[in-house]
């Protein structure tokens, strides 16, 4: 037991003895996690960040175009600003705006006509930044709803709509090509709208009737959505920093595990290895002590990261604390075993460093440490179940912002321990113990 504890103590002394490396090793993930956490939603109150900058070029100047702009400006996900065509094009090209909508001259009139007749539809030009395809879809969806609501409202109750109804009636009566059944149907429809407008005018003449008229004007969405973020409990806001700190913690601890492996390969080339091998130490003791010391270092890094996240960003362990500790411990163990496997399979430190960094980055990327796995395509999401970091991320997310119980940590813990055993097994069997291999 004395040699085992001495080996662990020595590793910890060396780790904590290099204070600059410790500070940098903790500071870098903190900075990156803070940045990513901010980008991915952060804490309550920074939703402003997610608004899509949208420019609107109004070449029409009609009631409908003005109404459309007002409707768009009321959207919480859009930041709408008026612009000219040239300025809008330039702004989108420079990435200062995600998209620009050009409302052409006579859009209001043509859109009204197109609502009831087969007249040609006016075109709304949407200039967009091709690097923002996702936002473009959102803008088009919002635009469709806003146009329908604005145009129909104007057609049913607005002044220009009344003119258009009259024009439409005249058009229906004068169009000789129109089948008689269609003419009758359109006459009834437009006549009904005209009658409705006249009745509303009469009602508006009475005091306090405007609100009612307003309420009945135009087509509106036949439903409303009620949004509720499902977190650990009611009134508990999602905290994007929880995922970011878990992700950066996982990434940097994996790199630390890699360093442990590379250091072991480097050690093999030194007199220290000869001295260790000359002492009556078993392979299990040497590798086991490395596993324990690396796990303790990994646990320390996670503890510091989440303590910082708790104090500065309010990240809390809303689920099972025991589950959180269990996931951290299992991941730390898995990382240590991963480092030893690198040492066992590697030939020289220089050659090993390259491919093991690549493997680590793949594990980090596919494990969802950079961006959550739900963004991945379905096939890739299925594939990532074989990546241990995916389970570490799932476990940490479950125990932090999702606020789930210990049972939700069990599967990640078991799978991480399985990987730890697998990697450790490879390390023990493949590790070149003697100097000559």
């Amino acid at each position, binding site marked *: 037991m*004395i*040699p085992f*504890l*001495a*080996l662990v*103590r*020595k590793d910890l*002394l*060396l780790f904590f*003895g*290099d204070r600059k490396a410790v500070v940098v090793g903790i500071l870098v993930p903190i900075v990156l996690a803070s940045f990513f956490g901010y980008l991915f939603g952060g804490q309550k109150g920074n939703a402003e960040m997610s608004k899509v900058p949208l420019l609107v070029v109004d070449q029409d100047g009609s009631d409908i175009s003005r109404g459309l702009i007002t409707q768009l400006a009321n959207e919480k996900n859009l930041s709408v600003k008026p612009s000219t065509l040239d300025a809008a094009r330039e702004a989108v090209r420079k990435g200062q705006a995600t998209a620009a909508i050009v409302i052409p001259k006579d859009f209001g009139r043509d859109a009204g006509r197109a609502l009831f007749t087969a007249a040609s539809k006016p075109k709304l030009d949407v200039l967009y930044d091709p690097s923002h395809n996702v936002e473009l879809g959102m803008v088009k969806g919002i635009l469709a709803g806003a146009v329908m609501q604005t145009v129909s409202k104007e057609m049913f109750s607005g002044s220009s709509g009344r003119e258009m109804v009259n024009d439409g009636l005249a058009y229906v009566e004068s169009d000789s090509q129109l089948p008689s059944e269609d003419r009758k149907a359109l006459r009834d429809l437009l006549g009904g709208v005209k009658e409705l407008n006249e009745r509303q005018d009469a009602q508006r003449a009475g005091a306090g009737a405007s609100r009612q008229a307003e309420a009945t004007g135009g087509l509106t969405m036949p439903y409303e959505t009620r949004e509720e973020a499902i977190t650990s409990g009611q009134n508990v806001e999602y905290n994007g920093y929880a995922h970011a700190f878990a992700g950066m913690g996982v990434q940097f601890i994996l790199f630390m595990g890699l360093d442990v492996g590379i250091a072991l390969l480097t050690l093999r080339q*030194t*007199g*220290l290895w*000869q*001295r*260790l*091998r*000359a*002492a*009556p*130490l*078993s*392979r299990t003791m040497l590798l086991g002590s490395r596993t324990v010391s690396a796990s303790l270092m990994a646990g320390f890094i996670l503890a510091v990261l989440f303590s910082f996240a708790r104090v500065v960003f309010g990240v809390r362990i809303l689920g099972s604390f025991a589950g959180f500790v269990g996931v951290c411990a299992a991941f730390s163990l898995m990382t240590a075993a991963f480092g030893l496997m690198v040492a066992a399979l590697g030939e020289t430190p220089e050659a090993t460093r390259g491919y093991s960094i690549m493997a680590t980055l793949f594990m980090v990327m596919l494990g969802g440490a950079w961006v959550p796995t739900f963004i991945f395509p379905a096939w890739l999401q299925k594939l990532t179940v074989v990546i241990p970091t995916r389970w570490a991320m799932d476990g940490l997310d479950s125990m932090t912002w999702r606020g789930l119980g210990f049972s939700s940590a069990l599967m990640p813990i078991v799978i991480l321990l399985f990987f730890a055993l697998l990697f450790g097994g490879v390390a023990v069997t493949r590790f070149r*113990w*003697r*100097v*000559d291999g």
Partner: protein
Amino acid sequence: MLEVKGVTKSYGPLVAVNDVSFRVDDGETIGLLGPNGAGKTTTVSIIAGLLSSDSGEVLIEGKQVKSDTDPVKLKIGLVPQDMALYDQLTARDNLIFFAALYSLAGAKAKQAIDDVLNLVELSDRAGHKVGTFSGGMKRRLNLAAALLHDPQILLLDEPTVGVDPQSRNAIFENLEALKKRGKTLIYTTHYMEEAERLCDRIVIIDHGKVIANDTLQALHQLLPVTNIIAVELDLADGFKPEQMLTLPGVKSAELKQSTLRVGVHDLSRDAPGVLRWLAENGHSFHHVSSEQPDLETVFLTLTGRSLRDS
């Protein structure tokens, strides 16, 4: 007692150690002498259990090292050729760590650490980080770390590489002190003067094979000459040294610039005749000295090559 019996080790087609055998008695100091790449370090590594041999065996007090944790390993202390210390730790922390590898802890470890620090005269630097030490101090601490568990056999693989003469002398004083304590030392080097100063017996290895194994005195007997008379001539122009080979007892004669070197077997018997012949033949001289041939010469005689050029 340590016995190396017919040990062979190959790396592919390269035979690094070829049927090496020798024996070291308790309290004896032997020098493994040979040029770089001769197989000295490989031999030491096999003795220490760092390498497995292809054939042959190493017996320490009649027992083979059978496993990594075999208690027989406690009888050996290894001083590797490469520095085996943690620069980031203090000298004492290094020694605490290496003592613990041999299950030494508490008061016993403290005593052992104080003893070895005292031996290598680093007690006053115990609390300093090794990274701040000079090369010579590191070498001495490297030696101290191998002594903590008080091994009977000390394997020293070129322990003075890269140190200044003063530090080398300090290390030698440490080793002489250990020798006086009855420790068995196996010392690899390619420095003749080190082997000559320290070793009771020399094992010369070349191309992985033992080519000589005897005391220094006995090795000298292998030479055609055991003494050299060096004469500084006043005028060397036209002097033909081969004329001297006819003199009784003279085995060799060579002239380099104005220094005449004459090899003889018996200095007291043959020197007067050499000096008399020079005087009688009109070759005046202003300085005479005698030298014993060193191990370099022994190696040259045995292999036909200079040790340092090999």
